[in-house]
């Protein structure tokens, strides 16, 4: 699937397009469909997101997993500081990145 | 692209169109020339007294060669109009002024008011350049 990601302009937080708005959790990401470019153009114009792009991902039983390791690390947080990641309680969280 | 020139000189603007450096070399009566980033500003040095306008083109604001070109001309005594043209943005104006530009023809219009504010960005300057402002070191050690 193709999903849209970007960064929150004010906070820099990693965000994912949910079909209606933006979420900090990759599992909320939805198939962007053929209107991805239009969505990006519209959202960029609102000046609340930045660095938006369409990326490859797959939906697995565990949730949405970006194809590229860089995006998986963005989705989780630094693998060397899992305490600061989006899954601070899950000590195995690093394993789905690699 | 609207031609909108900000001028910080009191003399009359030059009416002649600016010619390329190559054309200038062949035309003994031209008084205005346009320097592209790859041109050597020093080629103009023998002709400074007959020049009234030098345009320095910035095709992209990130190409900083024009700053050196401007300073070289001023350092050698050029007193005519020195105009920055092209991708000239508000946030670069104060540095351009410090390098000797005294007129600006930006692709995207800049208001005179915004330009004045930009020139006032730095209350002091660390370097001596060609704009006559005393460097901080000169103020610390008045002659």
């Amino acid at each position, binding site marked *: 699937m193709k999903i849209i990601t970007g960064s929150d302009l004010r906070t820099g937080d990693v965000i994912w397009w949910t079909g209606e708005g933006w979420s900090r959790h990759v599992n909320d990401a939805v198939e962007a469909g053929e209107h991805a470019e239009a969505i990006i153009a519209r959202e960029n114009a609102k000046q609340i997101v930045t660095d938006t792009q369409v990326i490859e991902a797959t939906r697995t039983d565990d949730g949405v997993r970006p194809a590229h390791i860089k995006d998986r690390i963005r989705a989780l947080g630094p693998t060397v500081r899992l305490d600061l990641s989006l899954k601070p309680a899950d000590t195995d969280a690093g394993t789905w990145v690699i | 692209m609207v031609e909108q020139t900000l001028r910080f000189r009191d003399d009359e603007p030059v009416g002649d169109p600016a010619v390329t450096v190559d054309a200038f070399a062949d035309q003994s009566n031209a008084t205005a020339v346009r320097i592209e*980033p790859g041109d050597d500003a020093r080629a103009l040095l023998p002709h400074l007294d007959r020049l009234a306008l030098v345009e320095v083109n910035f095709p992209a604001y990130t190409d900083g060669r024009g700053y050196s070109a401007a300073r070289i001309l001023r350092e050698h005594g050029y007193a005519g109009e020195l105009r920055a043209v092209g991708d000239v943005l508000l946030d670069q104006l104060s540095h351009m002024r410090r390098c000797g530009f005294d007129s600006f023809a930006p692709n995207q219009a800049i208001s005179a008011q915004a330009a004045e504010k930009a020139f006032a960005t*730095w209350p002091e300057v*660390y370097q001596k350049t060609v704009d006559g402002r005393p460097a901080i070191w000169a103020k610390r050690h008045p002659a």
Partner: protein
Amino acid sequence: MYQYDQYDQAMVDARVAEFRDQVERRLAGDISEDQFKPLRLKNGLYLQLHAYMLRVAIPYGTLSSRQMRMLGDIADKYDRGYGHFTTRQNIQYNWIKLQDAPDILADLASVEMHAIQTSGNCIRNTTSDQFAGAAADELVDPRPYAELLRQWSTFHPEFDYLPRKFKIAIIGSETDRAAMKLHDIGIQLVQNDAGEIGCKFYVGGGMGRTPMIAPVIGDFVPPLQMISYLEACLRVYNRYGRRDNKYKARIKILVHEIGADEYRRQVEEEFKHILTLGLEPPAAELERIKGFFEQPGFDANASDELDLSDPDFALWVDQNVHAHKQPGYAIVNISLKPVGGIPGDATADQIRLMADLALEHSFDELRVTHAQNIVLPHVKKADLYGLWQKLDEAGLASANLDLIGDIIACPGLDYCALANARSIPVAQKISERFADLGRQRELGELKLKISGCINACGHHHAGHIGILGVDRKGVENYQLLLGGCEGADTSLGTITGPGFNEDGIVDAVEKATDVYLAKRAEGERFVDTFRRIGMAPFKEAIYAKETANG
């Protein structure tokens, strides 16, 4: 230490105001990201993988305890309680919000600090010897010259849009602790036969994808012409450096392509012209600055005696404490490389503790080193034991300076948007593999440096052992380099051969150290043995049987 006067303060205050205005314009939607990006980069604000990252300048790596404490407070107030000290003697914060950035710059300005020109194609923060003003082998203290450089390069109107970034290092000792020849310009303060001081200019060094060692361009420039000579070097580069390809835009490529002799000729010509313009700050300005770097009030009766009966303390003294030019004093290196830790990271509490210790024991001064460690430059030997105990309690007493555990690593793919592979986990695994300090000391001086991509922020070219992260069809892969070195005998590492996965690279490093142990001659460091016996024996051992490479 240098202290701002009203002029210096006015400059940083103006910068805060300017950036506040730019951020407001961006948040209001008045300027686009394309227009804003170069403006925020000029203030060291990047957008990284997880958030904005702020790079704060630490001019020539020197800090007062008040400044250091502010760095800790910023980590708590605006970040997530830690910071990352870098090979450029700066600090980076990883979790910054754009809306907070102007306030952070204001907090920095309140302690005479800033993030000016920590990014962009301009003259970056000048680096220097972390032992400046303290080293026993020092000829001239480089800090006053570095401060002169800081002021000259700040908001230089002609050189803000160079072909590429520009990094200057300056040293005043025979021993080069700043990797001076791997900078765009390296300046070494030297003495001639008449006993006069001069600047030896090395121009056109660098790392990145085309590492080069800088040739000498100016043999002996009088100190009171240093700024004019720099103007000449930079002007030739600004006019003729390549702008058609950003990978060929550094000054090293210009010097390489036209040759050092031709570059020197052009610089000399420009220099002659510039000398007529009176751009050089007067001698009185250099004297004024020197006044800030006078020797601290050392105790002339301080004793050189040290009680080394505590073996752990003795080990730390042997490894991490350096000779000071003043009898009874020593230079303390605080390693930010605990076993399994993240090289260069320090928590807000650790940062504040180091600030307190500097106030109490080091005449209020700290330094950041290009090896991502912290230095307390002027510690009384009598204070060492108490100091060590406090460091130890805070996890800051790793006795591994310049050993294999003292790894340099860039942020890599855990944080960096440009990365191909993660650097930190590799550093952690290697430091765990060699956790035993006795084993590390047996291996002796061994500089291991890791970069997560070809940009070489982790100096992998200059590591006795270097590791470079690459992307092999979407999978992290690591190349091994041997034989790099910085300092007087600067050399660039050579790639051993095919790359490895994360575990494979740790094994390969271990095999390389085994070859060294087996082949070394008396007194040889790893890099010396490598230079003597060459790549073949290492290659043979590393690729011996087909290990499962990733």
